[in-house]
C-alpha cells in the first residue's frame, strides 16, 4: 500500500484524521464527533502536533500508548479536564525514572485514534505514526504488544479529578478487569496507558503508518470526486456489495453490541444479499453462507454517496451503503495474531482466509 507519511497535524487535519479513524473503527470504536472539537481546541491553544516514526525518537525514551476506557455515553456528558495526560506523564516518569518522549494511540479505530492528538498537543510531545491494532478491537489484550510477546508493564490510569492508579497486572485479563474497576470508580470514564516501553523495544511490535493512513483516508473521502473509488485504490480494498440495508438485528450482551446487518444489492448488485456479523465491530461478511471477508481483515460499511463510515449504532433500515473490505496488517496474519483476533477468537468456527484470496 503506497502511502504518504505526514509530519504534522494541524487544526485543519483533525477532521480528516477523524473520518479516517471512523472508517478504521469498522463499525465500532466510539463516535469521533466529540473528540474532533476537543482536539481542535487543544491545537488552537497549544499548537500543532509533530508526527514521528519510532526510529526518530530517542531509543531510550519512553513512549506512552494511550487510550480512553469506559462508557461513551458518559464521556459525552463528563468532558475531559485537559490535564489528565500531564498527570499520567508525571506518574510514568516517576515509576520508570525515564523521560516520556512521545505519545502513541493504542487503537487507531474510532475516537481512541483521534483523542491522543489532543494529549500530544497539550504535552508538547510528538505522536508516533503507529498504533497497536491498525483498527479497533473490543479488548485491551487484542493489541500488537501481546502478540509480539512484550512483557506486561505497570498500567497507569487517571481520571479528570487527577486520581491516579498504578498497578502491575499478571495477565491480559487482570489488566482489563483492574482498568475497568478504576473506570467505574471514576464515574464511568478514565484515561489509560499500558505497555510503557522505550521506543527501541516497540520497533517491530507496532502497526506502522496508522496516523498517516487515517488522515489520507479522510482526505480521500472529503476531496475525491469518487470517494469509494479513491479509498479502494488507497487501501487495496474490495467492494463486497453496493445496496440498501434490508435487515438489522442488534442486542446488547455483557457490554458488547452483537447482531448482524444485511445489505440487499441494488443496481449492478441487484439480487445479491450480504450479511455482516457484528460484535461491536464488523467481523465477518457472508453471502449465501460463503465467507467474503473476515476478521482480522477490515470490513467497513460506508455511506455510498459520501464515503463516510456508518457506525453499528447509526445503521438504519434502507440506508444506501457500500460494504468495503481490505487487508489487515501482516502482523495479525501470524499464527499468534490469528489466535488473538482471528474468527475463532470471536467464537466463529471458520478458517481465516486472507481477503486477497477470497473471491
Amino acid at each position: 500500500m503506497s502511502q504518504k507519511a505526514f509530519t504534522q497535524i494541524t487544526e485543519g487535519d483533525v477532521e480528516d484524521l477523524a473520518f479516517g479513524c471512523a472508517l478504521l473503527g469498522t463499525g465500532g470504536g466510539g463516535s469521533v464527533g466529540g473528540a474532533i472539537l476537543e482536539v481542535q481546541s487543544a491545537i488552537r491553544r497549544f499548537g500543532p502536533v509533530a508526527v514521528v516514526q519510532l526510529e526518530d525518537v530517542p531509543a531510550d525514551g519512553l513512549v506512552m500508548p494511550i487510550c480512553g476506557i469506559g462508557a461513551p455515553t458518559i464521556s459525552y456528558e463528563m468532558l475531559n479536564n485537559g490535564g489528565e495526560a500531564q498527570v499520567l506523564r508525571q506518574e510514568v516518569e516517576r515509576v520508570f525514572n525515564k523521560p516520556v518522549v512521545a505519545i502513541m494511540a493504542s487503537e487507531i479505530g474510532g475516537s481512541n485514534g483521534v483523542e491522543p492528538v489532543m494529549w500530544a498537543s497539550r504535552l508538547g510531545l510528538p505522536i508516533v505514526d503507529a498504533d497497536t491494532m491498525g483498527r479497533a478491537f473490543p479488548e485491551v489484550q487484542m493489541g500488537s504488544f501481546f502478540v509480539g510477546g512484550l512483557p506486561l508493564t505497570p498500567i497507569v490510569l487517571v481520571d479528570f479529578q487527577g486520581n491516579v492508579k498504578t498497578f502491575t497486572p499478571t495477565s491480559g485479563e487482570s489488566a482489563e478487569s483492574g482498568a475497568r474497576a478504576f473506570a467505574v470508580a471514576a464515574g464511568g470514564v478514565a484515561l489509560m496507558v499500558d505497555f510503557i516501553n522505550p521506543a527501541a523495544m516497540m520497533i517491530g511490535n507496532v502497526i506502522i503508518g496508522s496516523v498517516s493512513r487515517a488522515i489520507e483516508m479522510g482526505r480521500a473521502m472529503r476531496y475525491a470526486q469518487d470517494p469509494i473509488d479513491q479509498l479502494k485504490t488507497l487501501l487495496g480494498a474490495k467492494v463486497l456489495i453496493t445496496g440498501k440495508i434490508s435487515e438489522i438485528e442488534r442486542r446488547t450482551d455483557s457490554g458488547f453490541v452483537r447482531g448482524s446487518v444485511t445489505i440487499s444489492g441494488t443496481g449492478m448488485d441487484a439480487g445479491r444479499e450480504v450479511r455482516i456479523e457484528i460484535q461491536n465491530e464488523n467481523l465477518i461478511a457472508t453471502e449465501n453462507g460463503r465467507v467474503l471477508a473476515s476478521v482480522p481483515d477490515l470490513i467497513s460499511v460506508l455511506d455510498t454517496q459520501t464515503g463516510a463510515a456508518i457506525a453499528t449504532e447509526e445503521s438504519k433500515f434502507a440506508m444506501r451503503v457500500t460494504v468495503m473490505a481490505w487487508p489487515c496488517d501482516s502482523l495479525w496474519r501470524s499464527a499468534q495474531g490469528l489466535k488473538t483476533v482471528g474468527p475463532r477468537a470471536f467464537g466463529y468456527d471458520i478458517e481465516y482466509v486472507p481477503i486477497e484470496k477470497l473471491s
Partner: protein
Amino acid sequence: MPLDLRIGMDVGGTNTDAVVLDSNNRIVARTKQPTTKDVRQGVRSAFEYVIKLLDADAKRVGRVMLGTTHATNAILERRSLGRVAAIRLGAPASLSLGPMESWPQDLRDAVCVDTCILGGGHYVDGRRISPLDEDGIRTFLTRTAQNPDAIAITSIFSPTSPVDELRACKIVKEILGENMAVSMSHEIGSLGLLERENATILNSALFDVIGQVITAMQDVVDQAGLTVELLLTQNDGTLMALDFARRFPILTIGSGPANSLRGAAFLTGLSDTIVVDVGGTSADFGVLVNGYPRESAAAVEIGGVRTNFRMPDLLSVAIGGGTIISGTSEQPIVGPKSVGYRLTSDALVYGGSTPTLSDALVVEGRFELGTHTVQASELARLKSALRNVSEFITDAIDQVTLGNTHLPLVAVGGAASLIPDDIKGVSQVIYPEHGDIANAIGAAIAWASGHWEGVVPYGDGFNAAVTNGKAVACQRAVQAGADPQQVEVVEQIETPLSYLTTPTVRLIIKAAGPLCHI
C-alpha cells in the same frame, strides 16, 4: 357572545397560513398569504384577511395559536439575538472545551458576553463532582456585568441532578435582579453536555426575539379590536402559554413540521401514520405515533451549532413544487435547486422558461396552476422527471417506515399531488381536503403539554421516581395551559444505559391535555 372560535396560524418559508375553527373544529375561514421578508407583515396580512372574512363573528374569536419561524431565522441570520453570559458547573471536568468555543465565529460574536467553568455538577450516580463554587459565580457575574441580556446555566448531569443549576439561578437573581432572564439546561435538553449547553445558550439569546413576536402579534390583535388569548406552538406539536414561551423560546424551532403532522392527523382521524408535507422546496417526511410526531434521538444542528433538544424526526428530500428539472428527456435531473417564491414568474405554466415539478404535474393533469400552456417539446422530459421523483419518494418512505408497509401515507402541503397515489411501501395514500393548510390547522387544534426527563436506577426507588416524573410532567402541562381535569400522561420512554454498575434507564415522560375552556 361565546368565545367559540379560534385562529391557527403558521409562518412557513413560502406561505403564511391562517385558519379559523369553531368549537366543533369545523373550518369557518381560511387563507394562504405569501411570507414576507419582515415576517410580521405576512402574519398581519393573513390575520387581517380571516378577520375580515369573519366580519361580525370576529368577536367570537377567543384564542390565536401561532407557529413561527422567527427564532430559526434569527439564529440563521444572526439577527436580533440577545447577548449571553454562560456559566458551566462541573470543574475540574470539562475544562478541555469551553462554552461556545466550537461555535461559528460570527454567531459567537453575536451572542457571547463571557463564559466560565466553575466547581459544581454531579456524576451519573448523583455523587458530587465538586462543591458548588458560589463565590466564583458571584465574581463572574460582577466581573461580566457588562450588561448581558441573559444568563445560561449548565451543570454536568443536571438532567438527573439539577440542584446546582437551581442554586446558581438564585445567585444570579440576587446579584443581577429578579428580572434578569435565565435559562437552566435541565429544563431544555437531555444528556450530552455540549449539545445541551448550546441549546440553553441559544434559548437565552432568543428571549428578545420571541418577546418581539409576542408584542407584534398582540398589536395586530389589538388593532383588530379583539381580546384574545395568544399561544405559541412548539416542536412537538403542542402549545405554550405566553409566559412559558417567553422562558423557552427555543422550543418554537421545528414547530412548523410538527404542526403539519398534527394537522394531518386531525384531517384524517389517524393517530399512527406517515405524513409528508410537500412545499415549494422540499418534502418533509415524519411519523405520527399516538397522534404525536415521533421525535429524533440524534443531535440537531441549528445555524452551525449542535443541539439536542426535542425535535420531530424528519426526513427532508429536496423535492417540492418549485424544484427545477434539467438534463435530457432520457436522463432528467430533478433538483436539488428550486425556483422558490419565483414560481409564479419562472415556471413554464406562468410563461417563464424554467421547467419545474409543478409544470410536470400540470402536464400530467394532477395539478391545476398557471396561466400558460406548456410547449409540446417539453412534455417528454417533464414526464420522465416525475418517474424519478417516485423513486426518491419510495426510498424516503422505506427509511421512515423501516419497512413496515401497513402504514398509510397522508400527503399534505401545497404540492401534495407530487406524491403518486400508487406509491410503494405504504398501505394507501390519503390527500385530505384542506391538506394545503394542515400546518395552520395543526396549530389551531393543538393541546398543551409538559415533560420530565431523568436517569433512574432500577430498584427500590424506581416506582417512586416514575410517579414523581409523571406528576412533574402533568404539572408542567398545566403551566403550559392544559386543563388540570383532562391532562394525562401520553408517553413514557425508557432507554437502558449500558456500562454502569447498577442497571439504569433514561426515562422521559410526557403529559398533555386540551386547553382550559375560557
